Structure formats: structure tokens, C-alpha cells
């Protein structure tokens, strides 16, 4: 029996001890009419060899294309040591570290992660992760309402370059608690928010959300927006890409006072693309609002002998203590992904992470240069970009992407649904994993398609 060790003799002996005639007797408190005979719809068991063969065939179907899609998930090189160590059974098959003495490995790793993440974001406190970037915005918005008691508003104002999918997720999760999300208009020359419409006559929002680099790869006027928010009684929520923080001013450094809450997608830090998950959500904040933060937090303390050790702390915020009055219903987070990202950040170090960020910026810039040399393709904005950029085509993007895919190139993200004001706009991304030859392959495929 797969994964069940009992011999027939043992089953007999155990039933004898229990005083039951058969295993079926153990289910005698369940109304008989509910018991089922057969699970139609579940196939018979496969051996490990058979399932491995099936999965290899299926995985091979999905391989082989050169990927230039970013849009919230980024292909970076992942050092072999990251997942070799992360999938050690002691990390992989442990549970949430409730028994601290038996979980110091996981707890110290999280403490080290919190250290790295607070430093990258310029915040005082980081939690041990949320589910993913999109849902981290929902939690950050809910947190801002709890933390900003002076504000009566439940309106959250998003900069123009916030990922549309994040807005959808935040609305689905936080909407039932009365939060609404609105966007600033996009300046279609620069690809960043048009601040002209900021009007302090309106009711001030409870929080302002700024994504940097923006979903479009551009730079928002973070200092102006941060100061405007604080002057109007709103908190500032930053959405970050952690790789870029190796070279970008941290949100703690925005404007006069800095952002109040930082959230974002942790995937770029050593997590495989894997069709969208498991990833992990970043959540960091200033110390004065830590008690409003959702999720697990690890603290360093001492044991009975005075020796330093680590434990979950500030648990009075959480669902298993506070039940209906907790800061969130979150329980399990993305522990294993945090372990991987901590090992990733340790292997890269400040210099390595900065090289990854700048090389990605460079490769995207080179790609854009190649693409805009093709007839019918132009750069969408006059402003600088990070490792994603928008190009505009002289025809609808969808069919062009289909034709590129047939040529083995996943050419980017079609923006016409999220940003119709940009016309036939395409978001492209090249990370450090794309060498110059790869960029040439893309350019030549696009040239073919545009000339066809």
C-alpha cells in the first residue's frame, strides 16, 4: 500500500487492542447512508515510474520557448544551492514553528529574512511573509485602515502604474470590508501618474499606493506623492520589486517621512516562475504600526539559560488567539519560499543583487533598442525604465504575440486590456537570463512577423 506501512498481522493486532472486528467498525458513528462504495472519477494508482513518465511528457510540452514576459513574475537565475538546501526534509517537511525549541532552524532563517527585508525596504519591521504580491496589497490596504485611525475614509488611491491584477485581487479580498480602490490617471507621455488631478478638495484617501518600478517599468514621482499623501492625512503603501531595491532608494527614504507600509512580490528572489506560485508576499512597516500588521513575526529572545534563541512573537494579533478580532485570517504563509529567498539573498549579497538588477535593466534597454529599429514599432514613453519597458506597435498586439509564440518567442504582455489609453502597447522584459543572442532572436522573429 503506497505510504502505509502496516502489515496484515499488525492490523489484526491493532484491531484486537481497540476491540473492533474490522476497520469498517471504526466508522460506526457515521450515518450508514452516507458511506460510499466507489470513487468514480479517480483513476487507479500509478507506480512512481509511471507517474514520472507521464509528468515528464507533460512538462516537456510546456518547454522550449524564450520568455520575455515580466508583468509581475520574473525569470532570474536561481543558484543550484537555493533549492538543494530548501528542499532538505528538515525545512521542507516541518510545520509552522509553534514549538520554538524544535524549530530554531526555521525561526532563525525567518529572523535573517526579516533583517534583509527591512534593510532592503528601509522599514523597521518585516513579517515572515504573506501569500503573494497581489494579496499583499489587499492586506496592506486593510492594515492602513487599522493604522490610520484619524482617517474616516475607506478609499485607497492607486498611482497609475499599479498592477491592475493587484487592484482586482485587493478588491476581491478587501472590498467586503468597505474598501474601494481608485486610480490616478496615466500621463501617456512619461508612463507615470499624472499628478495634476491631485485635488485636496476631495475627501483625502486613507492610503496612497505607489508601485516602483511601476507595472509599466517606469519611475513614479515617489517623493511628491509621498509628501502629498502625508500632508493630506493618508498613509503611503509602497509596492516594490525586491531585486530592484539593491540599487533603488528604499521606500523608507521616499519624501520627507518615507512610506509607512511596504508590500510586493517576493518571487524574483530565487523562486521559480512555476505558473504563478507558490511565491510569497512581502510585508514590512514602520515600528509604530507593527501591532496592526498581519501574519507571523519572529523575534529574538533568550532561553532559560540566557542563551539567545528565536520564537514567534506578537501573536496576540493573530487568528488563533484573537479569533474574530484578529488582524487577518492568515495562518499558514509561504515559509518554504522565504527559506529559499533568504538563501538566495545570502548567495547574491549586496553586490550580486545589484548586478542582477542592473544587468536586467541593461538587457531590457538593449532589447528595446533592437525592437524600435523594426518598422511599425516605437518606444511608448520618453522617460527612463527599469527592467521592463513598453513598446507600441502599429497593429493589435494579440495576433503579433500569437505569431511570435509560434516562432518560440513569448514576446511580452499585451497591455491593451489594462491600459487601453496606450493603444497597441506591449510590455517587454529581459532579465539577466537573456543574453544578447536571445535578444537578437526576439528582434528577428518580430521583424518576420511585422513584415509578414
Amino acid at each position, binding site marked *: 500500500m*503506497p*505510504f*502505509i506501512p502496516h502489515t496484515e498481522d499488525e492490523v489484526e493486532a491493532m484491531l484486537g487492542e*481497540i476491540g473492533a472486528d474490522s476497520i469498517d467498525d471504526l466508522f460506526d*458513528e457515521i450515518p450508514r447512508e*452516507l458511506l460510499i462504495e466507489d*470513487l*468514480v*472519477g*479517480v483513476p487507479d*494508482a500509478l507506480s512512481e515510474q509511471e507517474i514520472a513518465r507521464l509528468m515528464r511528457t*507533460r512538462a516537456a*510540452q*510546456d518547454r522550449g*520557448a524564450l520568455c520575455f*514576459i515580466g508583468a509581475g513574475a520574473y*525569470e532570474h537565475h536561481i543558484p543550484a544551492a537555493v533549492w538543494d538546501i530548501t528542499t*532538505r526534509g528538515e525545512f*521542507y*517537511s516541518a510545520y*509552522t*514553528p509553534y514549538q520554538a525549541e524544535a524549530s*530554531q*532552524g526555521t525561526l532563525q532563517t525567518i529572523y535573517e529574512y*526579516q*533583517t*534583509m527585508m527591512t*534593510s*532592503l525596504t528601509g522599514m523597521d*519591521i518585516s513579517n515572515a511573509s504573506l501569500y503573494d504580491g*497581489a494579496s499583499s496589497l489587499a492586506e496592506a490596504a486593510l492594515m492602513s485602515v487599522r493604522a490610520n485611525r484619524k482617517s474616516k475614509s475607506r478609499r485607497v488611491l492607486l498611482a497609475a502604474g499599479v498592477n491592475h491584477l493587484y487592484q*482586482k485581487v485587493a*478588491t476581491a479580498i478587501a472590498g467586503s470590508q468597505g474598501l474601494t480602490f481608485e486610480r490616478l490617471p496615466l500621463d501617456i507621455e512619461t508612463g507615470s501618474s499624472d499628478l495634476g488631478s491631485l485635488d485636496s478638495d476631495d475627501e483625502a484617501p486613507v492610503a496612497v499606493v505607489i508601485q*516602483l518600478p511601476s507595472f509599466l517599468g517606469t519611475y513614479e514621482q515617489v517623493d511628491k506623492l509621498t509628501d502629498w499623501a502625508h500632508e493630506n492625512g493618508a498613509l503611503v503603501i509602497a509596492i516594490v520589486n525586491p531585486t530592484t531595491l*539593491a540599487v533603488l532608494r*528604499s521606500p523608507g527614504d521616499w519624501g520627507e517621512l518615507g512610506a509607512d507600509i511596504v508590500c510586493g512580490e517576493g518571487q524574483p528572489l530565487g523562486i521559480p*516562475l*512555476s*505558473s*504563478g*506560485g*507558490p511565491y510569497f508576499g512581502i510585508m514590512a512597516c514602520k515600528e509604530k504600526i507593527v501591532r496592526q500588521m498581519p501574519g507571523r513575526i519572529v523575534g529574538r*529572545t533568550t*532561553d532559560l*539559560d540566557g542563551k539567545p*534563541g528565536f520564537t514567534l512573537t506578537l501573536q496576540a494579533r493573530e*487568528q488563533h488567539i484573537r*479569533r474574530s478580532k484578529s488582524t487577518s*485570517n492568515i495562518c*499558514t504563509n*509561504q*515559509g*518554504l519560499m522565504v527559506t529559499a529567498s533568504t538563501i538566495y539573498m*545570502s*548567495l547574491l*549579497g549586496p553586490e550580486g543583487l545589484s548586478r542582477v538588477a542592473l544587468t536586467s535593466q*541593461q538587457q531590457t534597454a538593449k532589447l528595446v533598442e533592437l525592437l524600435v529599429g523594426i518598422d511599425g514599432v516605437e518606444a511608448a514613453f520618453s522617460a527612463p525604465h*527599469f527592467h521592463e519597458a513598453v513598446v507600441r506597435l502599429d497593429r493589435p498586439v494579440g495576433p503579433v504575440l500569437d505569431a511570435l*509564440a509560434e516562432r518560440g518567442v*513569448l514576446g511580452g504582455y499585451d497591455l491593451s486590456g489594462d491600459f487601453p489609453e496606450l493603444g497597441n502597447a506591449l510590455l517587454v522584459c529581459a532579465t539577466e537570463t537573456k543574453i544578447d543572442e536571445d535578444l537578437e532572436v526576439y528582434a528577428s522573429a518580430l521583424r518576420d512577423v511585422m513584415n509578414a
Partner: protein
Amino acid sequence: MGEQLIFERSRPGRRAFAQAPLGDSSGTVPDEFRRTDTPILPQVSELQVVRHYTRLSQKNFSIDTHFYPLGSCTMKYNPRICNSLALLPGFAGRHPLGPETHGQGFLSCMHELQEMLMSVTGMKAVSLTPMAGAQGELAGVAMIRAYHVANGQAERDEIIVPDAAHGTNPATATMCGCKAIEIPTDGEGDVDLEALREVVGPNTAGIMLTNPSTLGVFERNIMEIEKIVHDAGGLLYYDGANLNAILGKVRPGDMGFDVIHLNLHKTFSTPHGGGGPGSGAVGVGDRLKPFLPIPVVGKVEEKGEERFHWLTEKDLPQSIGHLSGFMGNAGVLLRAYVYMRLIGKGGMKRIGEFATLNANYLEKRLAQSGFELAFPARRASHEFIVTVKNEAKTLHVNAMDFAKALLDKGFHAPTTYFPLLVPECLLIEPTESETPETLDRFVEALVEIRDEAREDADRVKGAPYTTPVRRLDDVKAARQLDLAWRPD
């Protein structure tokens, strides 16, 4: 001295050279955005990193190293093959926004997973997107709310929750803009039907139940509860935390539940990972189908060939929406898929049977050894509760002391002090993976601890002694917050 922090091993200028792009980059950042300080990331060699985190891993208890009978967590064996196949390059490297044409392998696994989960739960449709049990709960309650609102009954905002429920249940009700109404449990561990009849009414949105409950017993009045709640116009939510107990034997759909979430990291053996990632797929009956979270994987036949595709807002306009940036914890879903195919139809039933056999055997052995059961008149499900309130009174060692002393005996502790209504409780779930000899050794360990307490209670209260650290000062941790290292 504790283990050094990775930052304390750091030396300026040292690095793992092989792990970042070589050569100079022409990449630039506008001056006004450029960072001027060096972030606190360690500057260490690759070997230092490997050795540091390998050593840290060795400070953990885990399923792979220890019996881990944590109640309501289903710490069963996580087959290695599930991990290695989920990390095949074609799966691990697939971009979530890649076209369907370049994802048929992945999508076919997801579609089959939906079908298998429908089969084992008896539900009519499944969405795989929730990223953990708690998010599955959020999806479920949000669907219940959306259903009532769509029927013009927005006033239905009360979610009934038994007092034995997981904390996530009432917390979820709040997150969905509902009120949690707690009802008591009777002396034998069943829901108090009179109390239920009193609270249902025109404001009832639904009830959240775990069955078997967290008390380790099957809710015998389930069909009566179903009638009371449905007659009052409410819906029934099944918390799948304990599905392992009845897998292949009884299906929530047949009990009349309208919506369920599964914990794939429990029942279907995906790793707990030191606190996630989980996966909280939801299943629904016909009434809630239009409200499922998106995306869902659909299938069409084209020229005799099956093609798999995403169902989105266009297909499910009443959906409660997206709960994650893409489609949830896809890699976890792949692991669950592999596990289900390895177990197969026959194995599903065996899981429920042997999880129940192990729990009843362990419960009986502990009772014979003089430990008091919380519900001695009942059959155990896949877990059961021992209360050490007598030991706490006479020997002055409480449930936490037993838990900590078990660590010295080489066992992870059971769940302690949950559920909240049983004093000094140990909630014990052995799972089907464990051999009877492991269960026997666990009984011996608890007996030894009690004997030691009779000799010297203080010795037990000081446990553990053999772990990397001894009991930690939680009060200090919360009062003198030290949540990140900073250089002196």
C-alpha cells in the same frame, strides 16, 4: 552562544562570485532614484551559505526526522517524487502569463486535479486558486455572501461557528464583512442542536463546520444540522482541515455541504514547508458554481483533441474574483496531483481507514496507560484529545510541560491548548504514515514523562534539555522587540 547569524559571518568584499552576472554592466538608474547605502545582505562565500543553512536545517524537527503528531495538521509523509516532478524544468520554468498553447501539459494536470477533487468531495465544481486553507475559507464565505446578495438577501451576514472551530473560521467571517456567532458543543462533542435552532434565522448566512470536528469526533447530527440551516435559508460550509479522517469513506457533498475548502498540504501531502506554502482549493455545489474564484481550468474538444484553457471573468461574470496574482500555488497543486495519482482510487479509501486505525489504536493504548480521554465514549476520528488536567492538579505538570518533555524523547509535540474548550489538552493526530511500533514508543514516552513528574516535577517543567535552545522567554520577546539584526 547561539548559532551565529549569517550577518556575523559576513566580511566586506567577500562574495559568491559564481552567482551573479560577471563583468561590468551598463545598466543605469536615474540619479534621483539611486540608492546610496549598502543594504544589509551578507557578504559571504557560497560554502559559508551552504554550511550555515544546512546547519540551521539540522535544528528543526520535521516529518522526515521525527514523529510529528500535531493534531489537525495531518503531518504525514511527503513523498519525494511529488517535489521532484513539480520542479521539472517545463513546469518550474513556465511563466504564469504564458499562452495556453505553451501550457497544455500543466493545464491538463490542473484539469484532472479539479476532477479528482470533485470526486473525493462530492462537489460539482472546483477552483484551485486559494493559496492556503484560510484563503479557501475566505473564498467560501465570500461565495456564500455573494449568493445571498444575488438573491436580494444582503441582510444575511451571520456566520455560525461552533466553539471548537479553528480560529481562522471566525477571523474569516470578519474579513468577509460578516458577524461570527459562536454556538456551544454538547458533552459528547456534537454541536448543541438547541443552541443552533435558537441562532438561525433571517440573518443567517451560513454555518462553518469541520467534520470530524477538532474534538476528534464525527458530528453525528450532521443531517439534522443540514436541515436546520438549509430550512433557515443558510448555507453549509465545510472546513476541510480534517478531511483525511474520512477520505474515500464519506463525502462532504453527500452530507449536504454547499461549499468546502481542502487543505492540500494536509490531506494530499504537499509539504508544510515550515509554515507554508499551503493550498486551499474550494469545491462547491450547484448553487455556488457561478461565484467560484477565477481562474478555473476548462476543457474543450477540438477535432477529436482535448484542449485546456482558462475560464475567466467572461465565463464566470458573477465570480468573487481573483484571490492571487495568477492562479494560486500552482507548484503545490502539481505536487498534490502527483500524490493523488500515486495513491489512486483504492488509496484514497485506505488513507481514511489507516489514519483512523492509527488514531483509535493510539487512543486506546493511552487510555490503557491511565491517560484521560476528553471523549471516552466516542470513536476517535483521525485524531483525538487527551486531557492532562489531573496530572496538572496532582503532579503540577501541565500540557505544555508534557509537550516540551516529548521533544527530549525525540517526538514533536502534539497540538496543545487547542481546541480551547478542553482544559490542558493534547490534540494528537498520528496519520496513516506511522508504524505501530512508533505509536507504541510514543505511548512509552508519555508514560515515562508522567513517571518522571512523580519523581521530580521540576525536572519535567524545565524540559526540554536536549534541543538547541531550552524554553524561550516569550514575554521578553514581545516586550523588548528584536525583530531584525542591525550592526553595532
